[in-house]
């Protein structure tokens, strides 16, 4: 269980790669910013970008990343962990 909550599992790494790829390709976030500790609020996304990201994640996973309000303090690692676990934040 401890391992499953870390950002180091294969599944988490896969989700992190997907998330980073999406943020770079669609929203032009520089690759050097896309680390597990990076918070979404530091990536230069505006509210419409967040909505589009939610939509793209929903297309891929069947659920949105933030089920409540968007939290700019969410890190990429936390997001990847949630996606790998099959639920939103």
């Amino acid at each position, binding site marked *: 269980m401890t391992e499953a909550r870390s950002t180091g599992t294969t599944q988490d790494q896969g989700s992190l790669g997907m998330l980073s790829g999406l943020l770079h390709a669609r929203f032009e976030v520089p690759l050097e910013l896309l680390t597990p500790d990076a918070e979404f609020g530091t990536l230069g996304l*505006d*509210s*419409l970008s967040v*909505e*589009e990201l939610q*939509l793209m994640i929903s297309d891929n996973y069947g659920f949105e990343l933030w089920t409540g309000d968007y939290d700019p303090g969410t890190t990429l690692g936390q997001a990847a962990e949630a996606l790998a676990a099959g639920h939103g934040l």
Partner: protein
Amino acid sequence: MHPFPGDAPGPAAVLCGFGGWVPEREVTNAELADRLDTSDEWIRQRTGITSRHVIAPGGATSDLAVAAGRRALGAAGTRTVDAVVLATSTPDHISPATAPDVASRLGLHEAAAFDVGAVCSGFVYGLAVATSLIRAGIGGSVLLIGADTYTTVVDPGDRTTAILFGDGAGAVVLRAGAPGEPGETGPFDLGSDGTLKHLILVPNGGSRQRSSGALPPAGHDRSGDYVRLNGGEVFKHAVRRMSGSALAVLDLAGWPPDKLGWLVPHQANQRIAAAVAHRLGIAEDRVLSNIARVGNTAGASIPLLLAEAWEQRLLTEGDRVVLTAFGAGLTWGSAAITWPAAHP
């Protein structure tokens, strides 16, 4: 299956003329930034809009519809049609419909005339209605106009909506033609979800508010008279519905997305149009856009784009075009058309 007369191929509906009109007065972002807590940069970055046109005091939707309709009739080289269909959600009055007035002012006396109310999807819905009238043999020609004056229902102090909307009208003429002829309209994909009507709503002015009791006192809170818009939720639904509907109509038409010539999305917001094009895999230079100059003109946005493309001879005869729209209701719809022969 036994053949019967209904199996015989009927006429197709074919586009043969376009016209657009926006009012003279232009309102720039800088002008809005003078009285609202916003900036030119913020508006452009969030919406793609730099200016919009606003109807003169005392003007009405019908004025714009007549101007666009006259230009479309001229472009089609005709002075008569069998029906006038007006897509609008900002009619001149609650009753009657605005289309009969528009028809009369265009000299189209006794033509069938009625409004279609599907808000920003209204032109695509109207195109389906006009196409059906012709295919069914009810009329041989139709003037379809999309016209709206949303600046009349926008709270001038609301920076989220006041920056977005502009006024305008666009019109097309359809005639009976041969199946496969350039300019043919259809197939269509139309849909709605009324459970989300609250996302874009003008609460007051209709029967629910009017039946609720006494008239409000002078100086009452007018917020219910204005359009309310949940931008974030609308963004997601708009992108999902427009791209899904466009894909559905591409499938119905048998057109692979990579063989599509042009995408003509409702000009809700440049960010929505870009997200739709991205999901469909359509390059930005194949997506018509005029939102920078005219803003969101609601039911007028798609025919205004078509009229501009016609005047600029931007498209080539036979080009495959998909129109896709989304609006309050919620409503959405898409149409496959081919571009008609160039005008003389």
